[in-house]
């Protein structure tokens, strides 16, 4: 039977999706003709929990199935991995105590998480979530998806951004742009349609806090300043309640539940439920039934607000700093937009209203608005949205280490990106061949108080007397907020090679190796499946042949024919346990051909047999 090739045309470009890769939840959206739309998973759910679990047969699963496994297999399950992106082991000593999963011994500049007997880096875990979103999008759109816009907290540093981009690549997505979450949200709100003005976006999510102030002018969204805290979010509120509940249980049950990973996760669910209830109800219960025991504690909104007030206050400090940088007073802010699940909390809304003296916008679902904005940005990149343009800034100053451990700033925070700076370097010793440049991010003056970003090694410098070499180094922060460094010998004008040693995160080679490995794994899986399928087919044809050899038709064949069938059977049996499905299929086909006459004869005999005894008048 012939097959048809359906040609949809070469110039049809595939859709770019917008992804909100959140601490707690992730979503994928796409720009439709009518506007941005969240893409449902096959079960009709919009939200994919950012949870990843290693199943007993060593497969990574993400989303809802992993959420269930968090209860039953907590030590093989990872949540809130966004908090670990682009960070080193010493950064996370405090919070790692609260996670059920373990950090591998050999973690240094990249954290490695131990699940079962395998280890995964945070970008690999995030990639599992992204792959799930990609699958959902492909199922819903009915076409392959290979390009994406992914959102990141505005206050993410270079390493955290790079880690997110790496995760995209590991998931088989080309990340066309990283967009800051608050700016994405402002795109989704479509405030530019109303008027020109200044807006503040207050983004309080599961694990991060951002504040951005933008000027809107004829479709241009110009970020004036941004600030935030990449370790402040709803998680912190959960942990606060969790601690209290654990103490209660210790005294009520006489049992330290914190050492029981499943118990902790069930209790975490209970406190999160209570927290969410308190946004709508004046009073609720933290309620846990576990292993035949029951813990109940009434909590009213007044107590809740007293408990979380310090956390809410911590969000206001970056807001004030952001206003200062934007050179604006609260009165000059026309509109305030609320983003992130934690902005459902009435105390948060009240605090924001008090600070900005304006009633904040809460019309759009705070869980969905970032993904919707990412889809709008995807539309801008695809050329479908022409009236809007985002001009974003770098959240942190970029500098280099100079004498005495002091940082010399090259690009200041809140500079519109892309932004660049050029600096000249020379040698200190006669004949020196290498110059090492230490790049940092942060606002403080001393190296020890800033975040080390990378060391750039200028290699093969022409050997000259000290101080004569002149190498011009260009630091360029691209539209994703990621640093690119190039160098040039100012005397010869020739490109100078630069080796990058990131302080945190994966090197380019490591990412490449992981991608190769995942491809090889995928190929291996595919091969294995094909071999297994071929064996099933071989089983069928061998069984059918064996059965036929007992029939009358077999006896009716010439001895030549019987001989060739017998040798085809032997050949198939010989390759049966091999791992090459091509060879298997070849031998199956050969046996098929050899038994064709036999099959026809049997068919005729069967027909004759069926007709025998039938009276034809």
């Amino acid at each position, binding site marked *: 039977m012939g097959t048809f090739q359906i040609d949809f045309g070469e110039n049809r470009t595939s859709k770019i999706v917008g992804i909100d890769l959140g601490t707690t939840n992730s979503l994928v959206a796409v720009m439709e003709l009518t506007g941005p739309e969240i893409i449902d998973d096959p079960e009709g759910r919009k939200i994919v929990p950012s949870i990843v679990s290693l199943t007993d047969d060593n497969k990574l699963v993400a989303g809802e199935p992993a959420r269930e496994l968090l209860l039953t297999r907590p030590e093989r399950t990872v949540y809130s991995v966004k908090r670990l992106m682009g960070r080193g082991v010493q950064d996370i000593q405090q919070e790692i105590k609260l996670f059920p999963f373990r950090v591998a011994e050999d973690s240094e500049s990249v954290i490695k998480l131990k699940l079962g007997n395998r280890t995964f880096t945070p970008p690999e875990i995030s990639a599992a979530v992204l792959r799930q979103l990609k699958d959902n999008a492909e199922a819903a759109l009915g076409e392959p998806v290979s390009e994406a816009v992914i959102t990141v907290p505005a206050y993410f540093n270079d390493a955290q951004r790079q880690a997110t981009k790496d995760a995209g690549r590991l998931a088989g997505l080309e990340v066309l742009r990283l967009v800051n979450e608050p700016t994405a949200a402002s795109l989704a709100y479509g405030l530019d349609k109303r008027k020109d003005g200044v807006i503040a976006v207050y983004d309080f999510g599961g694990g991060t806090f951002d504040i951005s102030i933008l000027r809107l002018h004829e479709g241009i969204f110009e970020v004036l300043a941004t600030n935030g805290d990449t370790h402040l979010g709803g998680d912190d509120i959960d942990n606060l309640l969790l601690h209290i509940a654990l103490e209660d249980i210790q005294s009520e049950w006489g049992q330290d539940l914190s050492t029981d990973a499943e118990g902790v996760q069930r209790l975490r669910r209970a406190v999160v439920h209570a927290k969410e209830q308190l946004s709508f109800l004046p009073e609720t219960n933290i309620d846990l039934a576990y292993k035949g025991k029951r813990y109940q504690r009434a909590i009213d909104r007044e107590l809740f607000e007293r408990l979380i007030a310090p956390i809410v206050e911590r969000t206001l400090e970056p807001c004030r700093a952001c206003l200062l940088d934007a050179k604006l007073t609260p009165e000059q802010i026309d509109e305030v937009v609320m983003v992130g699940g934690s902005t459902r909390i009435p105390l948060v809304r009240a605090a924001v209203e008090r600070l900005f003296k304006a009633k904040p916008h809460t019309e759009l679902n705070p869980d969905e608005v970032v993904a919707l904005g990412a889809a709008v940005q995807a539309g801008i990149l695809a050329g479908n949205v022409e009236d809007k343009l985002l001009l974003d800034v770098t959240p942190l100053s970029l500098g280099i280490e100079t004498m005495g451990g002091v940082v010399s700033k090259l690009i200041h925070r809140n500079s519109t990106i*892309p932004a660049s700076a050029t600096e000249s370097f020379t040698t200190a010793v006669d004949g020196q061949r290498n110059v090492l440049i230490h790049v940092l991010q942060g606002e403080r003056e001393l190296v020890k108080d800033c975040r080390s970003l990378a060391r750039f090694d200028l290699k093969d410098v022409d050997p000259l007397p000290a101080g004569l070499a002149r190498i011009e180094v260009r630091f360029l922060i691209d539209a994703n907020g990621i640093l690119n460094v190039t160098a040039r010998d100012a005397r010869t004008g020739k490109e100078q090679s630069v080796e990058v040693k990131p302080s945190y995160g994966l090197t380019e080679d490591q990412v490449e190796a992981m991608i190769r490995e995942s491809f090889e794994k995928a190929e291996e899986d595919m091969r294995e499946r094909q071999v297994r399928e071929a064996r099933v087919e071989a089983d069928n044809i061998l069984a059918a042949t064996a059965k036929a050899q007992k029939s009358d038709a077999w006896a009716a064949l010439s001895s030549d024919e019987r001989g060739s069938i017998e040798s085809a059977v032997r050949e198939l049996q010989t390759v049966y346990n091999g791992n090459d499905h091509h060879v298997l299929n070849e031998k199956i086909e050969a046996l098929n051909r050899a038994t064709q006459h036999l099959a026809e004869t049997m068919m005729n005999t069967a027909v004759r047999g069926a007709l025998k005894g039938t009276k034809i008048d």
Partner: protein
Amino acid sequence: MPELSSDFYDFFGLERKLNLDEAELQRRFYELSRQWHPDRFSRKSAPEQAQALEATAILNDGYRTLRNPVRRAEYLLKEEGFPIGEQRSKDVPPELLEEVFELNMMLEELKGGDDSARPQLETAKQNFLGLREGVDREIETLFSKYDAAESQSETAKQALHEIRGVLNRRRYIENLLRDVNRALDPIDAAAEPIDERL
């Protein structure tokens, strides 16, 4: 692909003047952003994308430089061969010698835990703010002098020379102000304003 000029004035299509119409500068910034932003080149070839990145970097660096009168003047000075050296700004302008001496004593007292120096520091701060205002008026006059003169003329060069001197003095006052502010209100450096404006 069009040739790009890395000269900020050329890139914005502006005359090389020190007094700029800021609204016009902003208008051009938005217009050029629409033309060059990498978001507009996502479906284009790699060389076109590279050029868009390059162009936007020049555009943004240029806007940052030109919209601030001090940075704008420093840029023009450098381009016209009057670079401002780091060392020069560390020399105490003679008319400030006495103030600087007194200030350093007050700062030491405050650091030593003697809060009685606080009112004096407040006075010093007001003094420096006044001095900066005077310098800024001086700069405005010199800007106009430069703009009125024929480019490359002796008058223009003389104006630039004077501007350099005044800018060095301004930078010196800025540093003193920063020290006073830090002593009065030791906030985290992260919250310190970054943009020195005229």
